[in-house]
């Protein structure tokens, strides 16, 4: 179990990056840590794995203060910090993995089993003989992920693990994490900007904003907001039904009479369908363009819902 108690973190000459964080992450829970750039996600992960010392409060893993007991707890932990390589650049991937095997004291059988398993999901076999320096960014990410999963850690922390990965690799990674969750009963914490991937694997979402926990609850709430929120831009040639058109324009988020464009924001599929059906009756439409909600809009929706429910 991971416990974070009244945790604050500030840097020299700056205000608090994290403010009074109180969280308990239970065993075998998969949590998505969401938030905009600069919201404090990475700092929180670094405090949770003992890299940074909190200014106040503590983070505990298995009941032990992680900063004071980092060395003892490392064998239970696997951490990926995106864009910070831990590989030796002029060695091949297989040599690097042998190095990690040696520092984690993994026996040959467990090492081969873990490698085979990881390869099934994220396909790293073809990279093993290549020097690390010759790999693409996405391939390096795959190798980093492999290196932290070799010892089957009980706690897995992934900071933006999908940056640089293609669709198949992302999908493979989430399936691999699901395997670790089900078979190894691992506790996993992922920070990501890609909300659409987390629904299948995470049981919980935490949204950080300006260093504070603003939302801590079901991941579905966040994903529903993403799936159901859309912006529709319409360009029309002429108005067919004046009365209906007037009503529709009243509900629009933007209307430009000269350019003959209208913009709507919809929250539910039914609302979108009804709107489109009304639009066809009221306007002679030249083009319709639908865009999904941005992550910022999703977070704002979720946070607004919380405020309204209070």
């Amino acid at each position, binding site marked *: 179990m991971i416990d974070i108690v009244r945790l604050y973190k500030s840097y020299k000459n700056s205000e608090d990056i994290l403010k009074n964080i109180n969280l308990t992450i239970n065993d075998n829970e998969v949590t998505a840590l969401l938030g905009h750039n600069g919201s404090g996600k990475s*700092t929180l992960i*670094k405090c949770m794995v003992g*890299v940074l010392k909190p200014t106040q409060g503590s983070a505990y893993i298995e009941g032990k203060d992680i900063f004071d007991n980092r060395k003892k707890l*490392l064998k239970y932990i696997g951490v990926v910090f995106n864009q910070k390589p831990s590989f030796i650049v002029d060695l091949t991937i297989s*040599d690097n993995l042998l*190095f990690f095997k*040696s520092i984690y004291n993994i026996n040959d059988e467990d090492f081969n089993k873990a490698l085979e398993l990881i390869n099934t999901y994220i396909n790293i076999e073809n990279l093993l003989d290549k020097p690390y320096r010759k790999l693409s960014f996405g391939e390096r990410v795959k190798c980093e992920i492999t290196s932290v999963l070799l010892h089957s850690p009980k706690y897995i922390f992934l900071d933006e693990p999908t940056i640089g990965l293609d669709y198949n690799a992302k999908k493979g990674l989430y399936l691999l994490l699901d395997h670790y969750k089900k078979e190894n009963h691992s506790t996993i914490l992922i920070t990501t900007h890609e909300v659409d991937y987390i629904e299948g694997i995470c049981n919980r979402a935490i949204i950080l904003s300006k260093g504070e926990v603003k939302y801590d609850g079901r991941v579905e709430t966040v994903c529903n907001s993403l799936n159901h929120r859309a912006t529709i831009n319409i360009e029309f040639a002429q108005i067919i039904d004046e009365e209906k058109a007037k009503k529709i324009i009243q509900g629009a988020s933007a209307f430009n009479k000269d350019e003959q464009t209208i913009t709507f924001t919809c929250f539910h599929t039914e609302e979108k369908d009804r709107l489109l059906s009304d639009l066809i009756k009221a306007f002679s439409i030249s083009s319709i363009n639908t865009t999904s909600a941005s992550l910022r809009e999703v977070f704002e929706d979720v946070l607004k819902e919380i405020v309204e429910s209070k």
Partner: protein
Amino acid sequence: MFLKKSWNLNKLFICFNISRFKMFKVDSILNIFSSLTFFVANIFFWFIMTETGLFIKGWSFNETLVFIAYSELFFGLDSAIFSMSSRFWYIIYSGNLDTLLTRPLDPRIRLIILNTNYLEIVTTALSFLMIIIVSGVKINFFLLIAGIAIVIIANIVLALIRFIMSYSAFWVGRMDAVSELSDCLTWFNKYPLVIMPTLLKIVFATILPFYFFSTFSAELVLVKLTYSKAIVFVIGLIFNLIIWMIINKIIWKKGIARYESLNG
């Protein structure tokens, strides 16, 4: 456990060094050549000094060769194993410490193991033995080994000092000058410190470890020290090792608590 892990890692890296040697043959051969050039130039310098009558009081050319042997041993081991300790500041400054702190191998040990040049260790050992043989000085085997042990301990002490200087990056960030400054410390290895005034000799044998880099070993092997003096210097060396280990531990702990990383 720690020793077993270190031994396993060293075995692994010996294999990697062999692969690297095969992969970068030209670079490896040039490295041997440059070491050889440095070594020949050093002997030539002392030969010219002696030929022109510039003796170190109480030291014959053959005895100076014994000093050079230990000096080469110190310098060789330093550049083959420990020299990267002065670059540790960059790992702190660049934020790469994040990933290293989350692996079960101390980042400082990792830096040293990863940069150990096993080929250079072999060439250093061969150079050392060759100069000792060429010197023609009759040497007690036990003292020869004791001299080597002193040089290795002095290397460790210097690495500890360099790490301590590198830790300043926790407070002040970029510390390029630290690398330069801590590399300068090996200059005290170039000549026997017997030429120094007594007060400096005492400082270099107590608070600072420069006397132990190669002068102490050479004096011990050449039986230029009284029994009581030798004992005092051995205590001085052990004191240096312990005190720098303690300082290293304290400053590392304070530094790591201040560490701010990069990118949040």
